[in-house]
């Protein structure tokens, strides 16, 4: 059973554009929503995270928007750069561990 659904599966954006990745969940007990970035041959690395008491968190060019009533959260990458090309995973925190989405492969075209 997939605890969190992520879309799109792949995304191509022009340099300077905005990349948007969406995730949806069902279990309202989840209380921590991180995003991870993974480059080929490396493990995922924590990018940014949010807790449900706020609706938005911004760190540099990366923003999480959180809609508690809709049980959705999204990652926005402003001014996307070729170096942002990677796979992005959303996750939700269960009782003991994170459950990850299936990933979005982002390609930023120069």
């Amino acid at each position: 059973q997939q605890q969190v659904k992520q879309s799109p599966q792949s995304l191509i954006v022009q340099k300077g554009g905005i990349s948007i990745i969406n995730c949806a969940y069902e279990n309202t007990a989840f209380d921590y929503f991180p995003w991870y970035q993974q480059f080929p041959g490396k493990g995922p690395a924590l990018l940014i995270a949010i807790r449900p008491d706020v609706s938005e968190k911004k760190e540099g060019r990366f923003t999480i928007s959180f809609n508690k009533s809709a049980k959705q959260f999204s990652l926005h990458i402003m001014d996307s750069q070729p170096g942002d090309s990677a796979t992005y995973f959303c996750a939700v925190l269960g009782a003991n561990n994170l459950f990850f989405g299936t990933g979005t492969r982002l390609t930023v075209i120069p």
Partner: protein
Amino acid sequence: GAGVSQSPSNKVTEKGKDVELRCDPISGHTALYWYRQSLGQGLEFLIYFQGNSAPDKSGLPSDRFSAERTGGSVSTLTIQRTQQEDSAVYLCASSWDRSRGYTFGSGTRLTVV
């Protein structure tokens, strides 16, 4: 150490053989996790260790999979009688506790031929 260390980085084994994968977490991190990442797929939770508590083994796919964590530090994931469907990247992560961000190692790429 500075990060989570996993060894070997690559492992090719014959179907039916046993394999051991090692994880050295960040010093002081009490939580340790194993995940499996199949080609083009997300991360599948396998097992979770927290301090001296009994591990959460709910994600292990079959009884051929087992893991231990010695002295609250190094962990070993063992796969017995490997099958081709076990081919994947096995990722280890550690954290201060369940509610903090994880630090992942670079993984062990296992290929069963």
